[in-house]
């Protein structure tokens, strides 16, 4: 996307992306639909659950090979402690030869909300170890600020719990986080249900949206991926364009001056 003729580039660490939509790769009906949906989404960066893919075996068609056109963001989904997440991140770095990691440390199975104490610990350890950490976080402004202060490459608060499709359950907090964190990229990760949710996130001034289930569990994932691409672009453009002020009373669009009969 370009704005005023200039490319609107998203920079995360030393990575430059022209798409502000980051896509997950789980739960699609099949790999063909996944690949078509990724293409329709326009995403350049895709996230892969490192514990749920086969990293070694090359004798069958490999899932990871299908994702070769994309930049791969390994994630630590399924980790419940800092220690576990750090080990999985190191495994991912070795297997995929990337410093990028999407850090998730989950607190329980019912909500899949982050465990803040373990999350901060893992984030510090990984940043110190040279990782470019994109961290999945609660929508708590203080936690997010602490993660930014630790040196994470991107802070990714949730709109709603993973896979819930509930949309922005606390837009006020999301706005507050944007207001408090100006120098680190902010991406909403989790909770997006449909296209308008993604557009709203971008209108709040967020740098990007990461989603998976909203597309993979749609009845027609490829079409929904195209919708998300447009929604993210629309929301971004609307944010950059500066919306009109709200008014209490109507104001006619056509000028009143020079009307016949006055």
């Amino acid at each position, binding site marked *: 996307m370009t704005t005023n003729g200039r490319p609107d580039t998203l920079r995360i660490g030393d990575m430059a992306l022209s798409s502000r939509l980051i896509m997950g790769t789980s739960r699609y*009906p*099949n*790999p*063909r*639909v996944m*690949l078509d949906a990724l293409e329709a989404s326009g995403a350049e960066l895709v996230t892969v659950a490192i514990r*749920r*893919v*086969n990293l*070694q*075996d090359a*004798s*069958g*068609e*490999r*899932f990871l090979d*299908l994702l070769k056109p994309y930049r791969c963001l390994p994630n630590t989904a399924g980790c419940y402690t800092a220690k576990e997440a750090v080990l999985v991140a190191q495994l991912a770095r070795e297997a995929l030869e990337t410093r990028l990691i999407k850090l998730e440390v989950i607190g329980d199975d019912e909500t899949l909300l982050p465990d803040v104490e373990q999350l901060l610990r893992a984030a510090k350890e990984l940043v110190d170890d040279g990782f470019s950490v994109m961290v999945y976080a609660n929508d708590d402004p203080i936690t997010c600020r602490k993660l930014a202060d630790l040196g994470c490459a991107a802070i990714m608060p949730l709109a709603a719990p993973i896979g819930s499709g509930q949309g922005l359950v606390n837009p006020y907090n999301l706005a507050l986080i944007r207001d408090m964190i100006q120098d680190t990229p902010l991406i909403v990760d989790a909770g997006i249900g449909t296209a308008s949710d993604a557009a709203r996130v971008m209108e709040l001034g967020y740098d990007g949206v990461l989603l998976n289930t909203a597309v993979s569990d749609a*009845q*027609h994932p490829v079409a929904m991926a195209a919708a998300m691409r447009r929604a993210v672009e629309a929301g971004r453009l609307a944010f950059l364009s500066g919306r009109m002020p709200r008014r209490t009373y109507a104001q006619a669009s056509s000028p009143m001056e020079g009307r016949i009969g006055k």
Partner: protein
Amino acid sequence: MSRTLPRATESRAERPALIVGGGVAGLALGWRLLCAGRGVHLFERDRAGRGASWAAAGMLAPDAEIGFEDPELYRLNRESLRRWPSFAAALKAESDVETGFREGGALHVAPDRDAAEALRRRYDFMKAQGLNVQWLSTAEALDIEPFITSRPAAVLYSPTDSQVDARALVKALRAAFLQAGGVLREGTPVRAVEPDAEAPAVVTEDGERVAGSCVALAMGAWSHGLQGLAPDRQPPVRPVRGQMIELQVEPPFGLQHVVRSAHTYAAPKPGGRVLVGATMEEMGFDARVTAGGLYAMLEEIRKIVPGVDDLPVRDLWAGLRPASRDHLPILGPSSAPGVVMATGFFRHGMLLAPVASEEVARYVLTGETSAWIAPFLPERFEAALA
């Protein structure tokens, strides 16, 4: 007894059809060709039917498995289920082995509100497609199957979904194949295929070259990586692991129907057994059973069939489903001359055995690509790569 090299005078029809892979797909195709009077040599790297076929639960469930965007697979599944009773009868007549084919329907039980929402979406879609499925009250559901949970959040009934005993099917097909005069070469891995319009051949690991009238690839998850096919002509198949639990039925437990939730099912089988399955995991050729896999299945199944709690565990295993890139089967002639495919059956290998074996055999015998297999030709992947 087998003439391995074609003589110049030997006509194509006299050479045997060669099949690589002795699972249900390969055995059924071989048996169908034998029934039509063709000679068949089948090469199996291990023991026939001991791969994914042996691990399968034997679901014959077009309705339960319908996908939002796969109407052609649904039509094929439905047609194959229609052919199942006569297929089972013919197989019994030839082999004298019962396959455990059983109608009776399946109940889809939603254990909680979120699952009920998802089930409702599927039900609305199924009704829009004209499927014979019913949304049941709890009382109606318990009348049909008293061993589901007494407090389901929702229950859907698909009365025509059926099942078979996969291991009995393997035994029946193997016996029928031999009875009909097929040459079964177990313990004989094939290294390479040599495409040729007139006399395609296979080369075994030991270097033996056998030429035939055609080569059919039915190697399931192992279909990828055969020498002699260009990389973009390899069937794009990968293994998807499914873990299974076999329980011993003890009174008063007496489940009569297949009961399913979104990711788990319990299926009563002949001989006082219940199969609980199955995970869907992308773990390459690792066919081990894991604690997490077992836990996930047991946690889910006891919510919808609480009576499993008391049943002794008889066995645990994992199988590798052959999944193509679009999760649809790969059937019929490939662009490699003389090479046909019957693989990529994924979750539907037992269900599709009748229609796939009959329609691929029809192609081998007559050169006709029937409307049933036309949507599933291997060339769709070549086009996708171009």
